[in-house]
Protein backbone atom coordinates (compact mmCIF):
# COMPACT_ATOMS: atom_id res chain seq x y z
CA UNK A 1 0.00 0.00 0.00
CA UNK A 2 2.94 2.29 0.79
CA UNK A 3 4.29 2.19 -2.76
CA UNK A 4 0.98 3.46 -4.09
CA UNK A 5 1.37 6.67 -2.04
CA UNK A 6 3.82 7.92 -4.69
CA UNK A 7 1.06 7.61 -7.24
CA UNK A 8 -1.07 10.11 -5.27
CA UNK A 9 1.54 12.82 -5.81
CA UNK A 10 1.98 11.79 -9.44
CA UNK A 11 -1.75 12.02 -10.05
CA UNK A 12 -1.97 15.48 -8.46
CA UNK A 13 -0.06 16.91 -11.40
CA UNK A 14 -1.28 14.65 -14.22
CA UNK A 15 -4.45 15.02 -16.26
CA UNK A 16 -7.64 13.19 -15.30
CA UNK A 17 -8.17 9.77 -16.85
CA UNK A 18 -11.92 10.07 -17.39
CA UNK A 19 -13.74 11.98 -20.10
CA UNK A 20 -16.49 14.42 -19.19
CA UNK A 21 -19.15 12.52 -21.10
CA UNK A 22 -21.55 13.67 -22.64
CA UNK A 23 -19.75 17.03 -23.07
CA UNK A 24 -16.56 15.34 -24.21
CA UNK A 25 -17.02 12.32 -26.44
CA UNK A 26 -14.54 9.55 -27.01
CA UNK A 27 -12.84 9.43 -30.38
CA UNK A 28 -13.52 6.00 -31.89
CA UNK A 29 -10.69 4.39 -33.88
CA UNK A 30 -10.98 3.68 -37.59
CA UNK A 31 -12.59 0.35 -38.37
CA UNK A 32 -14.83 0.23 -35.29
CA UNK A 33 -17.84 -1.97 -35.91
CA UNK A 34 -20.76 0.22 -34.90
CA UNK A 35 -24.22 0.92 -36.29
CA UNK A 36 -25.11 -1.16 -39.39
CA UNK A 37 -26.59 0.79 -42.30
CA UNK A 38 -27.42 0.25 -45.96
CA UNK A 39 -26.93 2.21 -49.16
CA UNK A 40 -30.37 1.29 -50.40
CA UNK A 41 -29.80 2.53 -53.98
CA UNK A 42 -27.20 -0.18 -54.58
CA UNK A 43 -29.18 -3.01 -52.92
CA UNK A 44 -30.65 -5.69 -55.20
CA UNK A 45 -32.73 -7.22 -52.37
CA UNK A 46 -31.18 -10.62 -53.00
CA UNK A 47 -31.66 -11.65 -49.36
CA UNK A 48 -28.12 -13.05 -48.85
CA UNK A 49 -27.73 -10.98 -45.68
CA UNK A 50 -31.06 -12.15 -44.27
CA UNK A 51 -30.17 -15.80 -44.90
CA UNK A 52 -26.78 -15.58 -43.19
CA UNK A 53 -27.60 -13.27 -40.25
CA UNK A 54 -26.83 -15.35 -37.10
CA UNK A 55 -29.39 -13.49 -34.98
CA UNK A 56 -32.22 -13.21 -37.55
CA UNK A 57 -32.12 -9.42 -37.25
CA UNK A 58 -32.60 -8.71 -40.97
CA UNK A 59 -35.74 -8.84 -43.03
CA UNK A 60 -35.52 -8.39 -46.82
CA UNK A 61 -38.45 -8.49 -49.25
CA UNK A 62 -38.46 -8.03 -53.02
CA UNK A 63 -42.06 -6.97 -53.36
CA UNK A 64 -42.34 -4.36 -51.97
CA UNK A 65 -38.61 -3.62 -51.95
CA UNK A 66 -37.62 -3.32 -48.34
CA UNK A 67 -34.59 -3.93 -46.14
CA UNK A 68 -35.25 -3.78 -42.40
CA UNK A 69 -32.79 -4.23 -39.55
CA UNK A 70 -33.97 -4.87 -36.02
CA UNK A 71 -31.38 -2.98 -33.96
CA UNK A 72 -32.35 -4.86 -30.80
CA UNK A 73 -31.55 -8.25 -32.33
CA UNK A 74 -28.46 -7.18 -34.27
CA UNK A 75 -25.22 -8.37 -32.66
CA UNK A 76 -23.04 -6.23 -34.97
CA UNK A 77 -20.98 -9.23 -36.04
CA UNK A 78 -20.43 -7.89 -39.55
CA UNK A 79 -21.33 -11.15 -41.33
CA UNK A 80 -23.91 -9.34 -43.53
CA UNK A 81 -21.22 -6.88 -44.65
CA UNK A 82 -18.98 -9.78 -45.72
CA UNK A 83 -21.61 -11.68 -47.68
CA UNK A 84 -23.29 -8.73 -49.45
CA UNK A 85 -22.54 -9.21 -53.19
CA UNK A 86 -23.02 -5.48 -53.90
CA UNK A 87 -21.07 -4.34 -50.83
CA UNK A 88 -23.88 -1.95 -49.95
CA UNK A 89 -24.08 -2.76 -46.22
CA UNK A 90 -21.79 -0.59 -44.13
CA UNK A 91 -20.85 -0.31 -40.47
CA UNK A 92 -20.64 3.22 -39.09
CA UNK A 93 -18.01 3.98 -36.51
CA UNK A 94 -20.47 5.23 -33.92
CA UNK A 95 -23.05 3.09 -32.13
CA UNK A 96 -26.72 3.87 -31.60
CA UNK A 97 -27.07 6.84 -29.34
CA UNK A 98 -28.41 5.88 -25.85
CA UNK A 99 -31.54 7.99 -26.33
CA UNK A 100 -32.62 6.21 -29.54
Amino acid at each position, binding site marked *: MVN*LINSIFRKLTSRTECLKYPFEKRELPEGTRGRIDIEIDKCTFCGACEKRC*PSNALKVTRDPKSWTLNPYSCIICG*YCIEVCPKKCIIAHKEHYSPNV
Partner: protein
Amino acid sequence: MIRRNTIPFGPQHPVLPEPIQLHLVMENEKIVQALPAVGYVHRGLEKIAEKKDFIQDVYLAERICGICSFIHSQNYCQGIEELMKVQVPDRAKYLRVIWAETHRIHSHLLILGLLADAFGFENLFMRLWKVREQILNIMEKTTGARVILGVCAIGGVKRDITPELSEYVLRELESVEKQLPELADSLLKDYSVKQRLIGVGVLPKDKAHELGAVGPVARASGLRMDLRETGYAAYGDLDFKMVVEEAGDCYARTVVRVKELYTSLDLVRKALQRMPQGPISVPVRGSPPADEVLARIEQPRGELNFYIRGNGTRNLERFRVRTPTFANLPALLHQLTGCELADVPVIAICIDPCISCTER
Protein backbone atom coordinates in the same frame (compact mmCIF):
# COMPACT_ATOMS: atom_id res chain seq x y z
CA MET B 1 -21.85 -25.30 21.96
CA ILE B 2 -21.53 -25.85 18.22
CA ARG B 3 -24.45 -24.53 16.22
CA ARG B 4 -24.88 -25.70 12.65
CA ASN B 5 -26.66 -23.48 10.18
CA THR B 6 -26.70 -22.85 6.43
CA ILE B 7 -25.85 -19.55 4.83
CA PRO B 8 -26.76 -18.95 1.17
CA PHE B 9 -23.83 -17.13 -0.50
CA GLY B 10 -24.98 -15.54 -3.76
CA PRO B 11 -26.37 -15.50 -6.43
CA GLN B 12 -26.31 -11.75 -5.82
CA HIS B 13 -23.24 -10.86 -3.83
CA PRO B 14 -20.95 -7.81 -4.05
CA VAL B 15 -17.87 -9.87 -4.89
CA LEU B 16 -19.46 -12.24 -7.37
CA PRO B 17 -19.22 -10.97 -10.93
CA GLU B 18 -21.66 -13.63 -12.08
CA PRO B 19 -24.48 -15.52 -10.39
CA ILE B 20 -23.70 -18.74 -8.55
CA GLN B 21 -25.16 -19.77 -5.24
CA LEU B 22 -23.11 -21.55 -2.62
CA HIS B 23 -24.98 -23.14 0.27
CA LEU B 24 -22.47 -22.92 3.09
CA VAL B 25 -23.12 -25.30 5.97
CA MET B 26 -21.50 -23.60 8.96
CA GLU B 27 -20.39 -24.70 12.38
CA ASN B 28 -19.95 -21.38 14.17
CA GLU B 29 -17.61 -19.45 11.84
CA LYS B 30 -16.18 -22.53 10.09
CA ILE B 31 -17.58 -24.02 6.89
CA VAL B 32 -18.08 -27.77 7.09
CA GLN B 33 -19.69 -28.25 3.71
CA ALA B 34 -20.28 -26.17 0.58
CA LEU B 35 -22.87 -27.05 -2.05
CA PRO B 36 -23.13 -25.16 -5.33
CA ALA B 37 -26.40 -24.27 -7.05
CA VAL B 38 -26.08 -23.24 -10.67
CA GLY B 39 -28.57 -22.55 -13.45
CA TYR B 40 -29.16 -18.80 -13.19
CA VAL B 41 -27.72 -17.89 -16.61
CA HIS B 42 -28.35 -21.01 -18.68
CA ARG B 43 -29.01 -19.95 -22.28
CA GLY B 44 -29.23 -23.27 -24.14
CA LEU B 45 -26.35 -22.35 -26.45
CA GLU B 46 -25.50 -25.96 -27.30
CA LYS B 47 -28.99 -26.54 -28.65
CA ILE B 48 -29.02 -23.25 -30.60
CA ALA B 49 -25.71 -24.31 -32.19
CA GLU B 50 -27.40 -27.38 -33.69
CA LYS B 51 -30.04 -25.19 -35.36
CA LYS B 52 -27.59 -22.72 -36.94
CA ASP B 53 -25.19 -22.96 -39.83
CA PHE B 54 -21.68 -24.08 -38.79
CA ILE B 55 -20.30 -20.68 -39.88
CA GLN B 56 -22.92 -18.81 -37.84
CA ASP B 57 -21.83 -20.92 -34.86
CA VAL B 58 -18.50 -19.05 -34.82
CA TYR B 59 -20.39 -15.96 -33.61
CA LEU B 60 -22.37 -18.08 -31.20
CA ALA B 61 -19.25 -19.73 -29.76
CA GLU B 62 -17.73 -16.28 -29.31
CA ARG B 63 -20.69 -15.29 -27.17
CA ILE B 64 -20.33 -18.20 -24.72
CA CYS B 65 -18.12 -15.97 -22.60
CA GLY B 66 -17.98 -12.21 -22.41
CA ILE B 67 -14.40 -12.11 -21.16
CA CYS B 68 -12.40 -14.64 -23.16
CA SER B 69 -14.67 -14.53 -26.19
CA PHE B 70 -11.94 -14.69 -28.83
CA ILE B 71 -10.48 -17.88 -27.34
CA HIS B 72 -13.88 -19.58 -27.58
CA SER B 73 -14.22 -18.71 -31.25
CA GLN B 74 -10.60 -19.72 -31.86
CA ASN B 75 -11.21 -23.11 -30.28
CA TYR B 76 -14.37 -23.62 -32.32
CA CYS B 77 -12.58 -22.64 -35.54
CA GLN B 78 -9.61 -24.89 -34.72
CA GLY B 79 -12.02 -27.77 -34.12
CA ILE B 80 -13.89 -27.26 -37.39
CA GLU B 81 -10.60 -26.81 -39.28
CA GLU B 82 -9.37 -30.13 -37.87
CA LEU B 83 -12.66 -31.75 -38.84
CA MET B 84 -12.61 -30.36 -42.39
CA LYS B 85 -8.81 -30.73 -42.75
CA VAL B 86 -8.26 -27.05 -43.49
CA GLN B 87 -4.68 -25.75 -43.37
CA VAL B 88 -4.62 -22.27 -41.78
CA PRO B 89 -2.00 -19.76 -43.03
CA ASP B 90 0.91 -19.10 -40.65
CA ARG B 91 0.15 -15.38 -40.37
CA ALA B 92 -3.37 -16.17 -39.19
CA LYS B 93 -1.94 -18.45 -36.48
CA TYR B 94 0.26 -15.63 -35.18
CA LEU B 95 -2.63 -13.16 -35.28
CA ARG B 96 -4.73 -15.62 -33.30
CA VAL B 97 -2.00 -15.85 -30.67
CA ILE B 98 -1.82 -12.04 -30.44
CA TRP B 99 -5.53 -11.63 -29.82
CA ALA B 100 -5.77 -14.69 -27.55
CA GLU B 101 -2.94 -13.38 -25.38
CA THR B 102 -4.35 -9.85 -25.20
CA HIS B 103 -7.56 -11.51 -24.04
CA ARG B 104 -5.60 -13.41 -21.39
CA ILE B 105 -3.97 -10.18 -20.17
CA HIS B 106 -7.28 -8.35 -19.90
CA SER B 107 -8.95 -11.32 -18.21
CA HIS B 108 -6.14 -11.65 -15.64
CA LEU B 109 -6.15 -7.89 -14.96
CA LEU B 110 -9.90 -8.04 -14.54
CA ILE B 111 -9.83 -10.84 -12.00
CA LEU B 112 -6.83 -9.39 -10.12
CA GLY B 113 -8.77 -6.13 -9.86
CA LEU B 114 -11.84 -7.94 -8.60
CA LEU B 115 -9.66 -9.81 -6.11
CA ALA B 116 -8.29 -6.48 -4.84
CA ASP B 117 -11.86 -5.25 -4.52
CA ALA B 118 -12.86 -8.45 -2.67
CA PHE B 119 -10.31 -7.84 0.07
CA GLY B 120 -11.17 -4.15 0.22
CA PHE B 121 -8.31 -2.55 -1.74
CA GLU B 122 -10.39 -0.39 -4.06
CA ASN B 123 -7.57 1.87 -5.17
CA LEU B 124 -5.61 -1.10 -6.55
CA PHE B 125 -8.78 -2.40 -8.23
CA MET B 126 -9.16 0.85 -10.15
CA ARG B 127 -5.47 1.06 -11.03
CA LEU B 128 -5.50 -2.48 -12.43
CA TRP B 129 -8.63 -1.79 -14.47
CA LYS B 130 -7.07 1.40 -15.81
CA VAL B 131 -4.22 -0.69 -17.22
CA ARG B 132 -6.80 -3.14 -18.58
CA GLU B 133 -8.35 -0.24 -20.48
CA GLN B 134 -5.16 0.11 -22.52
CA ILE B 135 -5.37 -3.56 -23.49
CA LEU B 136 -9.00 -3.08 -24.52
CA ASN B 137 -7.91 -0.10 -26.62
CA ILE B 138 -5.38 -2.34 -28.38
CA MET B 139 -8.14 -4.80 -29.21
CA GLU B 140 -10.49 -2.04 -30.34
CA LYS B 141 -7.91 -0.50 -32.63
CA THR B 142 -6.81 -3.80 -34.17
CA THR B 143 -10.19 -5.50 -34.52
CA GLY B 144 -12.94 -2.87 -34.29
CA ALA B 145 -14.45 -4.14 -31.04
CA ARG B 146 -13.36 -4.11 -27.43
CA VAL B 147 -14.22 -7.60 -26.13
CA ILE B 148 -16.35 -9.53 -28.64
CA LEU B 149 -13.75 -9.17 -31.36
CA GLY B 150 -15.51 -11.09 -34.14
CA VAL B 151 -12.30 -11.52 -36.14
CA CYS B 152 -11.83 -15.27 -35.95
CA ALA B 153 -13.17 -17.23 -38.89
CA ILE B 154 -12.94 -20.80 -40.11
CA GLY B 155 -9.80 -20.87 -42.26
CA GLY B 156 -8.02 -17.94 -40.64
CA VAL B 157 -8.83 -14.46 -39.35
CA LYS B 158 -10.71 -11.51 -40.82
CA ARG B 159 -8.44 -8.59 -40.04
CA ASP B 160 -4.74 -8.02 -40.35
CA ILE B 161 -2.39 -6.00 -38.17
CA THR B 162 -0.57 -3.42 -40.30
CA PRO B 163 3.02 -2.33 -39.46
CA GLU B 164 1.67 0.99 -38.09
CA LEU B 165 -0.78 -0.82 -35.85
CA SER B 166 1.95 -3.22 -34.82
CA GLU B 167 4.08 -0.26 -33.69
CA TYR B 168 1.13 1.15 -31.77
CA VAL B 169 0.55 -2.20 -30.03
CA LEU B 170 4.23 -2.50 -29.09
CA ARG B 171 4.18 1.05 -27.68
CA GLU B 172 1.09 0.31 -25.60
CA LEU B 173 2.55 -2.98 -24.36
CA GLU B 174 5.67 -1.14 -23.23
CA SER B 175 3.53 1.36 -21.34
CA VAL B 176 1.55 -1.49 -19.71
CA GLU B 177 4.77 -3.27 -18.76
CA LYS B 178 6.10 -0.09 -17.12
CA GLN B 179 3.01 0.24 -14.95
CA LEU B 180 2.77 -3.42 -13.93
CA PRO B 181 5.67 -3.74 -11.42
CA GLU B 182 4.20 -1.09 -9.11
CA LEU B 183 0.81 -2.80 -9.17
CA ALA B 184 2.30 -6.28 -8.86
CA ASP B 185 4.29 -5.18 -5.80
CA SER B 186 1.13 -3.79 -4.21
CA LEU B 187 -0.57 -7.09 -4.86
CA LEU B 188 2.22 -9.47 -3.87
CA LYS B 189 4.39 -7.67 -1.31
CA ASP B 190 1.86 -5.77 0.77
CA TYR B 191 1.57 -6.99 4.37
CA SER B 192 -2.22 -6.81 4.66
CA VAL B 193 -2.73 -8.42 1.24
CA LYS B 194 -0.45 -11.28 2.22
CA GLN B 195 -2.43 -11.73 5.44
CA ARG B 196 -5.59 -12.14 3.37
CA LEU B 197 -4.11 -14.57 0.83
CA ILE B 198 -1.30 -16.70 2.26
CA GLY B 199 -2.49 -20.04 3.60
CA VAL B 200 -6.09 -19.37 2.53
CA GLY B 201 -7.92 -21.95 0.41
CA VAL B 202 -5.06 -24.43 0.20
CA LEU B 203 -5.36 -27.04 -2.53
CA PRO B 204 -2.55 -29.63 -2.31
CA LYS B 205 -1.06 -31.01 -5.54
CA ASP B 206 -2.52 -34.51 -5.18
CA LYS B 207 -5.97 -33.11 -4.39
CA ALA B 208 -5.80 -30.72 -7.38
CA HIS B 209 -5.02 -33.69 -9.62
CA GLU B 210 -7.72 -35.85 -8.05
CA LEU B 211 -10.40 -33.14 -8.38
CA GLY B 212 -9.46 -32.34 -11.97
CA ALA B 213 -8.45 -28.72 -11.41
CA VAL B 214 -7.25 -26.84 -14.49
CA GLY B 215 -5.53 -23.60 -15.40
CA PRO B 216 -3.96 -21.23 -12.86
CA VAL B 217 -5.67 -23.15 -10.01
CA ALA B 218 -3.84 -26.36 -11.01
CA ARG B 219 -0.57 -24.59 -11.83
CA ALA B 220 -0.59 -22.81 -8.45
CA SER B 221 -0.75 -26.27 -6.82
CA GLY B 222 2.31 -27.46 -8.70
CA LEU B 223 0.62 -29.32 -11.56
CA ARG B 224 2.43 -28.72 -14.82
CA MET B 225 -0.50 -28.40 -17.20
CA ASP B 226 -0.83 -25.69 -19.81
CA LEU B 227 -2.06 -26.57 -23.29
CA ARG B 228 0.03 -23.78 -24.80
CA GLU B 229 3.00 -26.11 -24.26
CA THR B 230 1.51 -28.44 -26.90
CA GLY B 231 2.24 -25.68 -29.43
CA TYR B 232 -1.19 -25.18 -31.01
CA ALA B 233 -1.61 -22.10 -33.26
CA ALA B 234 1.84 -20.45 -33.23
CA TYR B 235 2.78 -21.16 -29.60
CA GLY B 236 5.31 -23.77 -30.75
CA ASP B 237 7.49 -21.04 -32.30
CA LEU B 238 7.28 -18.53 -29.46
CA ASP B 239 9.39 -20.21 -26.73
CA PHE B 240 6.50 -20.35 -24.30
CA LYS B 241 7.42 -21.05 -20.68
CA MET B 242 4.79 -22.25 -18.22
CA VAL B 243 4.36 -20.52 -14.82
CA VAL B 244 4.08 -22.98 -11.93
CA GLU B 245 3.88 -22.36 -8.18
CA GLU B 246 3.90 -24.92 -5.40
CA ALA B 247 1.99 -23.52 -2.39
CA GLY B 248 -1.55 -24.07 -3.74
CA ASP B 249 -3.10 -21.22 -1.75
CA CYS B 250 -4.81 -18.01 -2.91
CA TYR B 251 -1.50 -16.17 -2.85
CA ALA B 252 0.10 -18.74 -5.20
CA ARG B 253 -2.83 -18.41 -7.59
CA THR B 254 -2.38 -14.63 -7.59
CA VAL B 255 1.37 -15.03 -8.21
CA VAL B 256 0.65 -17.34 -11.17
CA ARG B 257 -1.73 -14.79 -12.70
CA VAL B 258 0.66 -11.88 -12.18
CA LYS B 259 3.55 -13.83 -13.75
CA GLU B 260 1.32 -14.91 -16.62
CA LEU B 261 0.67 -11.24 -17.38
CA TYR B 262 4.37 -10.85 -18.14
CA THR B 263 4.43 -14.14 -20.10
CA SER B 264 1.50 -12.99 -22.23
CA LEU B 265 3.02 -9.56 -22.85
CA ASP B 266 6.17 -11.33 -23.98
CA LEU B 267 4.22 -13.69 -26.25
CA VAL B 268 2.33 -10.83 -27.94
CA ARG B 269 5.59 -8.96 -28.51
CA LYS B 270 7.34 -12.02 -29.94
CA ALA B 271 4.35 -12.86 -32.14
CA LEU B 272 4.28 -9.32 -33.57
CA GLN B 273 8.01 -9.43 -34.28
CA ARG B 274 8.13 -12.93 -35.75
CA MET B 275 4.84 -12.82 -37.68
CA PRO B 276 5.47 -13.95 -41.27
CA GLN B 277 4.04 -12.16 -44.30
CA GLY B 278 1.32 -13.87 -46.30
CA PRO B 279 -2.41 -14.43 -46.52
CA ILE B 280 -4.54 -14.28 -43.38
CA SER B 281 -7.21 -16.77 -44.40
CA VAL B 282 -8.04 -19.53 -46.84
CA PRO B 283 -11.48 -20.07 -48.37
CA VAL B 284 -13.43 -22.95 -46.85
CA ARG B 285 -15.84 -24.89 -49.04
CA GLY B 286 -18.26 -27.65 -48.14
CA SER B 287 -19.66 -28.81 -44.83
CA PRO B 288 -18.19 -30.58 -41.80
CA PRO B 289 -18.09 -34.34 -42.53
CA ALA B 290 -19.87 -36.97 -40.45
CA ASP B 291 -17.03 -37.21 -37.98
CA GLU B 292 -16.18 -35.95 -34.50
CA VAL B 293 -13.43 -33.91 -32.94
CA LEU B 294 -12.42 -32.78 -29.45
CA ALA B 295 -10.96 -29.28 -29.65
CA ARG B 296 -8.83 -28.18 -26.70
CA ILE B 297 -7.36 -24.78 -25.91
CA GLU B 298 -5.88 -22.92 -22.95
CA GLN B 299 -8.23 -20.23 -21.76
CA PRO B 300 -7.25 -17.66 -19.06
CA ARG B 301 -9.06 -19.91 -16.56
CA GLY B 302 -7.75 -23.24 -17.81
CA GLU B 303 -8.44 -25.90 -20.35
CA LEU B 304 -11.49 -25.41 -22.54
CA ASN B 305 -12.92 -28.39 -24.44
CA PHE B 306 -15.34 -28.37 -27.36
CA TYR B 307 -16.75 -31.65 -28.62
CA ILE B 308 -17.95 -31.13 -32.19
CA ARG B 309 -19.73 -33.78 -34.26
CA GLY B 310 -20.68 -33.10 -37.87
CA ASN B 311 -23.16 -35.01 -40.02
CA GLY B 312 -22.24 -33.95 -43.54
CA THR B 313 -24.74 -31.07 -43.60
CA ARG B 314 -24.21 -27.39 -42.74
CA ASN B 315 -25.70 -28.00 -39.28
CA LEU B 316 -23.74 -29.71 -36.54
CA GLU B 317 -24.99 -32.96 -35.03
CA ARG B 318 -23.70 -32.08 -31.57
CA PHE B 319 -21.78 -29.24 -29.99
CA ARG B 320 -20.70 -29.78 -26.39
CA VAL B 321 -18.80 -27.27 -24.26
CA ARG B 322 -16.77 -28.07 -21.13
CA THR B 323 -15.42 -24.89 -19.61
CA PRO B 324 -12.57 -24.52 -17.09
CA THR B 325 -14.78 -23.08 -14.34
CA PHE B 326 -16.89 -26.24 -14.49
CA ALA B 327 -13.72 -28.28 -13.95
CA ASN B 328 -12.61 -26.00 -11.11
CA LEU B 329 -15.88 -26.12 -9.13
CA PRO B 330 -15.01 -29.37 -7.23
CA ALA B 331 -11.66 -27.79 -6.31
CA LEU B 332 -13.49 -24.68 -5.06
CA LEU B 333 -15.78 -26.77 -2.85
CA HIS B 334 -12.77 -28.57 -1.41
CA GLN B 335 -11.04 -25.26 -0.67
CA LEU B 336 -14.13 -23.85 1.02
CA THR B 337 -14.48 -26.79 3.40
CA GLY B 338 -12.76 -25.86 6.66
CA CYS B 339 -12.27 -22.19 5.88
CA GLU B 340 -13.83 -19.21 7.65
CA LEU B 341 -16.84 -17.34 6.29
CA ALA B 342 -14.81 -14.13 5.86
CA ASP B 343 -12.45 -15.92 3.45
CA VAL B 344 -15.18 -17.21 1.12
CA PRO B 345 -15.19 -14.17 -1.23
CA VAL B 346 -11.42 -14.30 -1.72
CA ILE B 347 -11.40 -18.07 -2.33
CA ALA B 348 -14.33 -17.86 -4.75
CA ILE B 349 -12.72 -15.04 -6.71
CA CYS B 350 -9.35 -16.82 -6.79
CA ILE B 351 -10.62 -19.63 -9.03
CA ASP B 352 -11.68 -16.85 -11.46
CA PRO B 353 -15.28 -18.10 -11.75
CA CYS B 354 -16.98 -17.58 -15.09
CA ILE B 355 -20.49 -18.85 -14.59
CA SER B 356 -21.85 -17.76 -17.99
CA CYS B 357 -19.32 -20.06 -19.68
CA THR B 358 -20.11 -22.88 -17.27
CA GLU B 359 -23.84 -22.77 -17.88
CA ARG B 360 -23.66 -21.92 -21.60
